[in-house]
């Protein structure tokens, strides 16, 4: 009996836990705290935080419990991450949620979404310089796209071992957009520029919104076929929304499907961060590079908006360039908040949605390009 008791005790988490597990559990608790108390992306940080707790409960190997053990419950959930199933389903929901009117009304603002993707390629260079292999560097660079599903999508094919740190970095920084972006935006713009009022966008007809997903899908996927799973689902979701006749499907895509997939994705990504795998020098490098990717992407968008103003008769507020990082709709909201600090009657949210949405398309294209360059 005593032997049995000793064996049982030696199999408990208390006996098996290492210091890495303890650190990761603390990280998980911090993420849950940020999600609940600070309301930073609670839909993402709470599942990821709890996933970290689940993944760092020390379990006996070959019991079919760990996330990396075939046949375990967590492993089945992780299958959707490793085989790029969840990111396209999230894009389906995003498409069904998104109104592209702002972008259709002023397509020139899409250039800001393209400019913000410079952050991806600059970070790619930075990661190469720090000694990361090209496929890892590309996966780190995509954090600058500020798009969690896209980061997971690319990392799953290029550097599957880095999914945990890259996903955590991408989602954490997405949640921290209100903290990271404003100082950069203020640093790069004058008060006069922040006060610029944008002209009212034209009204977009229903038929334009209906045609756009088809035209957008065909053009983008002919240019970058690697973006097919992401952009295919994004535009399909939007077509469901705009068609009205398939409202029931659109409702499912933007509510139950996206919610279910977010839970599965969050838990699986969180659980993949087992201490011994996660707490490495590489992960630290990824976090540092991820932060710089966000900063460079934000700065690129703002600077490009100022550059555009050199040629435009009707000036644009350069703050909206920061929304080119695709964290939808967080970065657009940040633009609104920073703009309203200067002039409470200036409403930039609607205008910022154009670069924000084009940033989603741009980062998916960038991911497809990196995949085609380095995936072979």
């Amino acid at each position, binding site marked *: 009996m005593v032997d049995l008791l000793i064996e049982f005790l030696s199999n408990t988490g208390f006996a098996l836990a290492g210091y890495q597990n303890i650190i990761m559990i603390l990280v998980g608790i911090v993420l849950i705290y940020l999600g609940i108390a600070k309301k930073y992306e609670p839909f993402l940080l709470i599942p990821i935080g709890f996933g970290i707790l689940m993944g760092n409960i020390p379990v006996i190997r070959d019991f079919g419990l760990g996330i990396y053990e075939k046949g375990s419950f967590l492993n089945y959930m992780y299958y959707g991450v490793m085989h790029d199933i969840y990111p396209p389903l999230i894009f389906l929901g995003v498409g069904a949620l998104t109104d592209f009117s702002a972008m*259709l009304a002023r397509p020139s603002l899409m*250039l800001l979404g393209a400019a913000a993707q410079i952050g991806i*390629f600059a970070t790619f*260079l930075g990661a190469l*310089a720090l000694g990361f292999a090209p496929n890892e560097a590309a996966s780190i660079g995509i954090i600058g796209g500020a798009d969690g599903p896209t980061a997971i999508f690319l990392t799953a094919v290029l550097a599957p071992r880095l999914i945990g740190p890259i996903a955590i970095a991408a989602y954490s920084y997405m949640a921290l957009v209100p903290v990271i972006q404003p100082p950069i935006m203020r640093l790069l713009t004058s008060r006069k520029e922040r006060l610029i009022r944008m002209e009212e966008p034209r009204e977009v007809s229903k038929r334009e919104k209906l045609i756009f997903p088809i035209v957008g899908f065909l053009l983008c996927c002919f240019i970058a076929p690697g973006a097919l799973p992401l952009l295919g689902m994004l535009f399909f979701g939007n077509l469901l929304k705009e068609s009205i006749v398939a409202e029931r499907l659109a409702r499912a895509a933007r509510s139950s499907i996206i919610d279910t997939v977010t839970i599965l994705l969050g838990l699986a990504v969180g659980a993949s961060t087992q201490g011994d795998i996660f707490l490495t020098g590489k992960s630290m490098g990824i976090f540092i590079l991820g932060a710089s990717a966000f900063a460079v992407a934000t700065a690129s968008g703002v600077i490009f908006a100022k550059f555009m103003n050199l040629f435009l008769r009707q000036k644009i507020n350069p703050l909206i360039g920061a929304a080119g990082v695709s964290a939808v709709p967080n970065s657009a909201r940040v633009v609104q908040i920073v703009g309203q600090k200067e002039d409470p009657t200036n409403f930039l949210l609607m205008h910022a949605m154009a670069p924000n949405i*084009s940033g989603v398309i*741009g980062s998916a294209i960038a991911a497809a390009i990196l995949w085609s*360059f380095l995936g072979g």
Partner: protein
Amino acid sequence: MYGLDAISAHNGWQLAALGTSIVFTGLIILSLAISQIHKVLEFWDKRHTYYQRIKKLVQRKHRSEAIVSDPVLPKNVKGSVRQFKLLVEQIGEPFPLPKLLDFSEKCGFPHSHSSVNDLLQAKLIVPDGKGYFLWNHEVEKNIKI
């Protein structure tokens, strides 16, 4: 390998430059395409108006051509239009030009070569594209004889 050497060794500069260019090109093409959607739709909505306008324009052009063809017809030929028309009806359409000249000479029309030339210039007699000629009834309607 670290630093700039690592970037160069992995073709980093080329990849980054090309990648950025493709993203820009893709989004520029998309923005150009979507900026035209409302114009295409507007054109589609007004297609009947445009069709009517083009139809009117073509009709006006035909009419002006017919009117322009009238003054080149000398007064003396105007009189022979009816005679040549009867001759064409007798020969049947399409007809060879030498046969028309031959018949007109036999019938004793004055200056038959010159008259046929005037009728050709006035587009009352037009080639059918296969070596024969036809009587242009449309132009005839617009000539005040």
